[in-house]
Each structure stands twice: as structure tokens, then as C-alpha cells.
């Protein structure tokens, strides 16, 4: 394919490969681009990806599975966009996503990506689990189905299927219930939110998912949606409006903080620990949601918050974005972003690493085991921490 049909044909050559994109905000190292941190080869840097993309589109370089893996290893964490000083920085991730779309158009994607997308198409989740098992996370609970309550609690694929993330999904439901929030869930009628599908460049499948969800939400009369995952939050808040999905979308930390301010969220039991907080990319860099999680944590008696050197817009991605929590192009080895991140957390002296994303939760807990830090550090979702502080076991 000649370059001139590529959406960012007039932009992509502007990357100089100066390397700003590798740094965090405080310049402390060049390990804040997840794929570059993992492999430390220029091909995996943000600039490398753009130059390789351009070479492929120019037919200077042939497609290969390795090329595709380089492209799909980008977690779309947006660190590059934060650090690049040039005016095209807002389109860096879009350039990667558009290149992925070109690969998909030609049927040239890594097998793991193909499986990921097939599973979502077939089963509504990337794991290949049956749709009928989507509500397994709520078995044995009295969580209500959504029937016009104030909030539709959208759990998402990871909270629904992953056994570790299911605990955080249940903790949030229990917290909301105890705070008197009116909410319901979709259970087996929930479908994938499509955020990862969008970032993997499968625009057609994303559109189907978005429209399916929007129609379902509208048919049920949902006006307010609260999500467990920042990924779903991002899709529903920023992408669904393009398809007519104008809902009020909240990440759960936003709703919990409102409930706390109204005096409805009881955290009086406190949480006696030194804790550090990992900013999820799709809450932080994508949606500027840095302060609310911290305000919530600060409201908990006995909890001592210790920031990692890389936090807020300098936070290192856990490596799970853009489907990589399942596709896993960045896993293995002690330089994986998740393993680097739990080491950052351990350096603070914290005994708890708090997260606000089920994907981060799973990624970082696995990394904790690989780093053999389990006796020093535990990964907990903020919902779980608040539940404990509220006396919910």
C-alpha cells in the first residue's frame, strides 16, 4: 500500500526520534515507554515504531510478524504524548492505531492479536470464556440486575472473568450497596466495552460493540454508568458519544468520592498501612484522573500514602494496555513494565500497592509473584481497601 492512503501520511515523518518520549516527566530514566523499557532496542521505542511504520507503508520494509509485534507491543499509555514537545504529539497514539488498522485491513496481525479479537467477536470477552459465564463474579451475591436504577454498574471483561479481578468487582458492588447507591448490573447481558479493540485498530468491531452497548444501555433507560475499569470508562466517556452514546460516565473512584463527600461512604475503620498508588493510564493520562483516587485514599484513617518517584503523568504503565494484559507481548523477564512497576512500589517502603483498574490489579499481582515480593507488598484495588476501611469483609 502506498503511504498516501494512510491517515497520518502528512504527519508521521515529523518524528525526529529525539527520544523525549522515552522519559517520565522528571527525566529520571529512559524506561517510561513500556515496550522500550522491556526490550531496550530502538525498534521498540515510540520513534522507532513510527519510523518502522512509515517504512512499511512506503514499502521500504516488508511486513513481518516481528514488525507487527513491535507495533502491537505499544500499550497506548500516552507517555509519549505527554513528553513529546512537538505539535503533532496529540496524534502519536492515533498514528500507531491507524497503522494497526492498516495491518488488520490486510489480515496481517500477530496470532495473539487475532485470537484476542476473535474471542471478543465470538464470546464478548478476550479470554474465550462463554458469555453464559460472564456473571460468575456475582454468583452467591444479592447484587441486583439493572432495571432502571440510578447507576448501571458496568463491570467489564476483566472484572467479570478474571478470578482476582472478580474480588474487586464484588468489593465495589458491596461498597456501593452499603453506601446506599442505587445501581444494577447486566450480568450475562453485558458485552465487551471495546476500548482495547479500538486501540488494537479494529475499528469495525469496535463500532459494533459500541453500538450494541449503546442500544442496550438506551433500551434499559440507563443514563448514568459507573465502570470498574478505566478502560471501559475511557471508551464510554470519550468514544461512545461519537456513536450517539451520550451517557454520564463515571469511573468508580469518582462516584465513591461523591458518596464520601455526601457522608454515605463509611471508611471509619481505617486502613493501617503505608500505601503507594499506581495511576492507571486510562484514568490518568487519558482522562486526567489523578486527584480523585488520592483524595479517596487520603480520607481513610491510618492510611499513609507514599508516592512513587514516577507518579501521575509520569507513572509507568503496567504493560497491560491495548490488549497486552492478554496478548502479552511485553511479559517475561525482569524488565517487563509490570515487574519494573512493582519494584518502584517496593522502593517506597509501602506494604500495599493500590490500583484503580482491574487490569493493573492482575498485571501487578502477577509481577509481584515473579519478583518474589509477596511477603513485602500486596496489590489491592482501591475498592477493596475502602471496603476493608468500611468494615466490609
Amino acid at each position, binding site marked *: 500500500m502506498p503511504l498516501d492512503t494512510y491517515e497520518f501520511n502528512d504527519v508521521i*515523518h*515529523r518524528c525526529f526520534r529525539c*527520544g523525549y518520549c522515552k522519559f517520565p516527566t*522528571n*527525566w529520571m530514566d*529512559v524506561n517510561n515507554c513500556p515496550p522500550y523499557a522491556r526490550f*531496550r*532496542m530502538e525498534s521498540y521505542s515510540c520513534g522507532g515504531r513510527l519510523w518502522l511504520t512509515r517504512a512499511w507503508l512506503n514499502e521500504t520494509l516488508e511486513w513481518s510478524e516481528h*514488525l507487527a509485534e513491535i507495533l502491537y507491543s505499544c500499550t497506548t499509555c500516552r507517555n509519549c504524548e505527554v513528553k513529546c*514537545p512537538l505539535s503533532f504529539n496529540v496524534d502519536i497514539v492515533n498514528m500507531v492505531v491507524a497503522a494497526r488498522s492498516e495491518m488488520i485491513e490486510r489480515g496481517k496481525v500477530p496470532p495473539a492479536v487475532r485470537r484476542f479479537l476473535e474471542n471478543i467477536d465470538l464470546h464478548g470477552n478476550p479470554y474465550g470464556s462463554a458469555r453464559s459465564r460472564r456473571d460468575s463474579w456475582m454468583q452467591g451475591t444479592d447484587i441486583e440486575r439493572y432495571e432502571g436504577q440510578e447507576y448501571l454498574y458496568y463491570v467489564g471483561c476483566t472484572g467479570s472473568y478474571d478470578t482476582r479481578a472478580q474480588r474487586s468487582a464484588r468489593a465495589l458492588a458491596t461498597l456501593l450497596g452499603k453506601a446506599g447507591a442505587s445501581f444494577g448490573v447486566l450480568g450475562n447481558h453485558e458485552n465487551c466495552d471495546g476500548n482495547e479493540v479500538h486501540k488494537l485498530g479494529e475499528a469495525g468491531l469496535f463500532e459494533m460493540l459500541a453500538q450494541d452497548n449503546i442500544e442496550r444501555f438506551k433500551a434499559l433507560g440507563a443514563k448514568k454508568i459507573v465502570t470498574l475499569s478505566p478502560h471501559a470508562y475511557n471508551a464510554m466517556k470519550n468514544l461512545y458519544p461519537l456513536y450517539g452514546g451520550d451517557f454520564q460516565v463515571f469511573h468508580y473512584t469518582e462516584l465513591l468520592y461523591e458518596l464520601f463527600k455526601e457522608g454515605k461512604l463509611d471508611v471509619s475503620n481505617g486502613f493501617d498501612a503505608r500505601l503507594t498508588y499506581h495511576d492507571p493510564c486510562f484514568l490518568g493520562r487519558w482522562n486526567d484522573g489523578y486527584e480523585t483516587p488520592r483524595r479517596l485514599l487520603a480520607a481513610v484513617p491510618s492510611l499513609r500514602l507514599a508516592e512513587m518517584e514516577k507518579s501521575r503523568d509520569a507513572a509507568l504503565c503496567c504493560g497491560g494496555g491495548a490488549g497486552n494484559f492478554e496478548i502479552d507481548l511485553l511479559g517475561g523477564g525482569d524488565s517487563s513494565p509490570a515487574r519494573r512497576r512493582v519494584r518502584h512500589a517496593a522502593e517506597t517502603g509501602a506494604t500495599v500497592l493500590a490500583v484503580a483498574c482491574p487490569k493493573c490489579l492482575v498485571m501487578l499481582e502477577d509481577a509481584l509473584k515473579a519478583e518474589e515480593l509477596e511477603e513485602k507488598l500486596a496489590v489491592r484495588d482501591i475498592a477493596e481497601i475502602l471496603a476493608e476501611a468500611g468494615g466490609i469483609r
Partner: protein
Amino acid sequence: MNAIYQALADIVDAEHVSDRPEELYIYSFDLGTAEPHRPDYVVAPRTTGQVREIVRLANREKVPVVPLGGGLSLAGLAVPLKGGILIDLKRMDRILEVNEKGRYAVLECGVSQGQLTSYLAAHHPGLTHSEPGAPPAATVAGNALIHGQGDLAQPYGFNSDQVNGLEVVLPTGEVCRFGSCAIGASWFTNHPLPDVGLFFGWCGTTGLITKLSIRLYPAKRIRGVGQFVVEDEELVPEIIGRVTGTQMAEDVIAYSRAIPPFGLGLQHFTVNIAANSEKELEFKQELIWDDALGEYIRRGDGGYLGFTRGLEHPQISKTSDYKKGGGFEYVGSIMPIEKYPECYRRGREISERHDIPYTVTGRCVGVGHSMMFAWTYAFNRADPETMRQAREALHETDDLVLELGGVIWKPGTYGQQLILGRLDPGTRALMRRIKEVLDPGGIMNPGNWEGI
């Protein structure tokens, strides 16, 4: 499987060696106008021992070795002109020691400027280093090796003058140390042992630097930049002389550029000033702006444009996007300051002849002892014609540097050959003997200083 590939994977690990088209493509490029050449292998070692083993392998196999730091010289110095093994040294990025009392830092060769700046700010806020105008991904070692200059060049000179010691893997695989560390002492000085300065300015053709010690300097609490402007380029040398004569500035730069248009033909100065107190700052400002430059202001020849507190560290460069084209390259020269007017005029002519908006910059090195004068040419990476024009302008400028009595800084292969053509025969013969002794197989970054 290819035997060299397998040997490299055994030395490092399979993840940090590649002979795949994607890595070979990316590592074939300089970021400037140099033509790409693909390496045969790319390897990213983590330790000096691994570097040594790679070099020994290259000797056995008679394969070229090309060391790469930040890759930001823009002179094509790490383009594998004859293929071979490209060694990306950026994984060797540990800051090994900062000695506050002795004011030095020992670094692995892959430590970036940004990393050191950030580390000092966080852990040793009373210390700073001479940070070049390059992007923060440029390595400290690479910059020193090309005789770079930073924002403390005015008081302390070239960054290569600020090196206290080196650890080097020679082209035949031996590991050597230079400076006080060579006798087991700390890395606090490069003197007074016999001078074996065989690695600076050699473009990686005599060995690979794996560690270095650099001097650090007091970081004053208040740092800022004052600006001054004149129209007449003939005034620039004496203004630089007057400012440096006060010995009150940390950095003195004169520049002129066509964009933005209101600056066309004007000569701007930035003068960095640092102080620990308001009193000290006021004193220094008075000496510079009133005593040294007040006369120009009173005569109406120059204007003081104000003082801005705070220095951007690391500095952010947007030069590459001037033409929304993703590319620029410059010819740097080390030049007598008196040559500024001619450098400006001739450089502007070259730019205009090649339809490139001119940008010229002169940074004072030492107390008026010389300046690094640079002519910058932006190009559009998507337009081969603008790249060709920029390349021609660069070559013309290389010629101009020598014509004006300067020395080409970090010359690419074209500039190297110009220099060799003028080099004192005795010096050239000595360089040839050194090269033959150190690198009998001719494996180190071949194509550079070719034909010594």
C-alpha cells in the same frame, strides 16, 4: 543459525541481539542527512564484560564494530558504513557514584543527560553538570567523546575537558582505565599521569568507552537567563569579550535566525547567570548589563530584553519541526570568536542559496577562548529534495569552516576527509600509527577517519 548471531546471543541474551530487518533498518539511520547503511547485527550489552566479549568476537570474525550512544550527533558518526555489529550502549545506564565533596560523578556510558540532570536534582541538588543543548536522551559519555559543550562551557570549557577518568574497551578487547582510577584511587582526577588521550574526537575508531567520571559544579539557587540584542553583527565579538570579561556568566550564546521574521538580521544574546542570593544576582546583573553592555544601550546600538528566572533543564528543542518536516542537521565548528560576523554572513548566504531559513548560533567556550559556531539546516524528511539541499549546504559549510580558519566539530565523513587533507603530515602519521597499534584489524567504526 548464524554463528555470529548465536555467539552474540550467548554473550548478551537472545532478547538483546537481533539480525532481523526491523532492527537493522532502525539502526541504519542517523537522524540527520547521512545516507543509511545497515548493520549486520545489533546488540545491546549490559556490562563492560559483555562489551569486551563482543569486541573479541568481532576481532576473531573480522567484523566491524560500531558503538552507539544516544545517536544524536546528527553527523552520521554511528552509521554502520561497512556493516558489522552495532553496539547500542544505552542499557549501560547506571550512575555508579556521585562524590559531593570531590564534585564528580562516575557513570556508565549509557547514562543520558536527562537522567543525570534528574538524578542530581533529586539527590544532590547542590550540584550540576554542564548540560549540552542536545535532547536529554543524548548520553553524557557520547557528548564528552565528541568534545561537546554544555551550559557551563563559558567558565569550564568543553565537556571533554571535564572528564576525570575513563574505562575503555580497546579494539582488541583489553579493558583499560585512565586517570586516577587507573592506580586504584577514586575517579577524582585525570591528571597528572602520562597523557594518553586517545579516545576523544576519534569517532569511536580507537575504543569503546564504558565508564567515565565527569566533574560536577555548584548549582546555585537562582539560575536564569538574560537577553540582549544588537543589529550589527560586527559588534558581537566585542560584546562577547565584554560579557566574558566580567566572569559573571555561566553561559553566553549569540544567535540569529530567519524565523520568526522579526528576528531576521538581528543578533540575539542569551546570558545565563546564577547566584545564591538576590544580592549576588543583582551584583552580577549590574556588572553585565550596566558596566559591560550599558554603553551599547546608551548609544542605541543594543537593547536589554530582560531576565527570566529559571533554566529549562533539560532543555527542550523543537528545531526538528521548524518545517514540519522532522529533520535538521547542523555543521558545528570550533571558531575564534572574532569570526562571528563572517560566520553569520556567509552562513546566511549559504542558507538562502539553498532556500533554507537560516539559523546560526555561537556558544562561547571558555573565557572568550573560542566559540562553537553552528549553522543549522532544517529539512523535510518526506521530501528528498529538501534533504539533498540540506546535505549540499552542510558540505558547503564544512568547506567554509576551514576557509574561515575554524575546525569542524564532530565532523562526518565528508568533514573528516577535508580535515585530513589539511592535516599536518606528522600529525597524520602519528594518528595512523596510533590507529594501527590500537586497532590492527581495523574493525572499529570503519569509514570514519578513513585513510589516515
